[in-house]
């Protein structure tokens, strides 16, 4: 077995063990949310961490997935499993339309372009009341079912989400360790040199943007059918920034970093309730300290500390 395969098996075992041991429904819900956030962080990491293209509007695709599936099922009575491909398709089409002109931009300008896109989508969610329910949110999204298994049960939903996470990890890892993955990293390192080895950078950037958008929409679908109620604020600019933070804190260009970043940023607010009024201050401080100590993200930081301690031992 390769190292990757071993890590998948461990991951799988951890999911099963957590699912069987845990009793408290509140924790199930929290960990399921971590899973959904991990998908989001993974989606953005493919774009930002590997291909080096920033998006400050990724919550828009998350929201498009959630709202499309929510509206199709609750308003039009679609089966959720029929609504999923529709939601993904819509996200893909919008990603192509938005990505084609914006991905010409680089650096700050790409950030501004995607930021604008995210804000427009957020405003549509909020103001198109007749369809989206407006600022007060959209209710009555049905839970998922497969045959007789209802995912209304938090334990089942936990398993569903985390197996989707595991599957996405495997797919992304395969993608990265391939011709396409190397080309993505090449664009990140030097776009000029990437062109000079024959990579159609424009085309490939669009492809990974679309892939990333579709994965975010999948996360939105899972979110909508778990919570059954969605509101525009779950897909605002702040959420886009939070996804970027997860990627940066966890570690750019690191699959496992997405898991780490999403876990930390989802758990922190829960732990910090004790600080009540100072919650956000402490939250910000912790993020600052993490970035100062491990500027390359938690994953690299942990690996470096481990290696340093090992070489220190070897010297003794």
């Amino acid at each position, binding site marked *: 077995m390769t190292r990757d395969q071993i890590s998948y098996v461990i991951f799988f075992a951890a999911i099963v063990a957590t699912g069987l041991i845990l009793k408290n429904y509140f924790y199930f819900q929290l960990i399921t949310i971590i899973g959904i956030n991990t998908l989001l962080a993974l989606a953005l990491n493919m774009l930002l961490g590997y291909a080096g293209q920033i998006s400050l509007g990724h919550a828009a695709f998350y929201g498009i997935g959630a709202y499309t599936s929510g509206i199709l099922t609750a308003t039009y009575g679609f089966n959720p499993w029929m609504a999923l491909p529709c939601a993904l398709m819509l996200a893909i089409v919008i990603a192509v339309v938005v990505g084609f002109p914006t991905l010409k931009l680089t650096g700050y300008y790409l950030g501004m372009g995607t930021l604008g896109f995210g804000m427009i989508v957020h405003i549509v969610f909020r103001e198109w009341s007749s369809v989206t329910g407006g600022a007060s949110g959209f209710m009555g999204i049905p839970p998922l079912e497969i045959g007789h298994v209802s995912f209304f049960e938090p334990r089942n939903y936990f398993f569903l989400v985390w197996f989707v996470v595991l599957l996405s990890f495997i797919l992304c890892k*395969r993608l990265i360790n391939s011709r396409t993955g*190397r080309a993505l990293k090449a664009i990140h390192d*030097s776009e000029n*040199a990437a062109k*000079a080895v*024959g*990579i*159609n*950078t424009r085309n490939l950037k669009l492809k990974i943007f679309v892939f990333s958008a579709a994965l975010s929409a999948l996360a939105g679908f899972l979110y909508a059918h778990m919570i059954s109620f969605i509101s525009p604020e779950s897909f605002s600019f702040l959420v886009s920034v939070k996804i970027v933070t997860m990627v940066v804190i966890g570690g750019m260009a690191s699959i496992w970093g997405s898991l780490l970043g999403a876990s930390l940023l989802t758990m922190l607010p829960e732990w910090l309730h004790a600080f009540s009024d100072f919650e956000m201050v402490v939250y910000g401080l912790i993020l600052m300290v993490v970035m100062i100590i491990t500027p390359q993200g938690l994953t690299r930081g942990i690996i470096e500390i481990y290696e340093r301690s090992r070489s220190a031992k070897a010297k003794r």
Partner: protein
Amino acid sequence: MELLKFMNDQDQQKQNGNILLKIESVSKAFGGVQALWEVSFDLQAGLIKGLIGPNGAGKTTLFNLVTGIFRPDNGQIIFDNQNIQGRQVHDLVNLGIARTFQNVEIFGSMSVAENVMVGQHVRTRSGFWGAITRVPWMVREENNIWNNAMEILSFVGIEDLAHRKSSELPFGWQRLLEIARALASNPKVLLLDEPAAGLNATETRQLGKLLKKIQKKGITLLLVEHDMSLTMEICDRIVVLDQGKKLAEGTPREIQNNASVMAAYLGMGT
């Protein structure tokens, strides 16, 4: 009509014989500055051609025209009997034009081997779905990519460094790596932008040997170079540019004895 065109092509091929790249009265201006003015020369297949000239002579501009970064204002560039005007940079690599950069642009976050693996992009096919599904032919291709990379690295002489992170290599080796990466695309012509810049005398001599070895493999080379000793030693023919115009063309010996070239370089009155 089709037949006529075909016969014309045939004729042209015969005429051109072994001319791989044809620069035909190419001009390029930036704002008010005429960087190139009606420059013409041919690149015969299998030769090493040097492109020299004082700073601002238009060497880099010409280089960028051939590699598709700029479009000429006037004139044509014919590669392998195709007009390559307006082609995208990545498209030209597909046709067989590879290049290296003056300031060495390697993929720093990747290992040495991975750099050469990326270099094979245009001659490999597997895409998104192939990567995700890992079908057998894709796995085979992946193995081939690795084997080719190792072969090219040992051709260049840096196979021992395969697993090192490329940004940690000394500059001289990075330059060799960049050449290896360019070779990985199986080019017909390799364009080198000042390959000896930043190298010491020993490294320059090794580079010269490597370039000769590449020529023996049947690859045509065009190099822009400042280092006269290297140019004179390895080039079969040399083109001299001065202030955007072609000043002279000939064998290294002819160039060395050309009065106007001496004037341009050393500022001696004619």
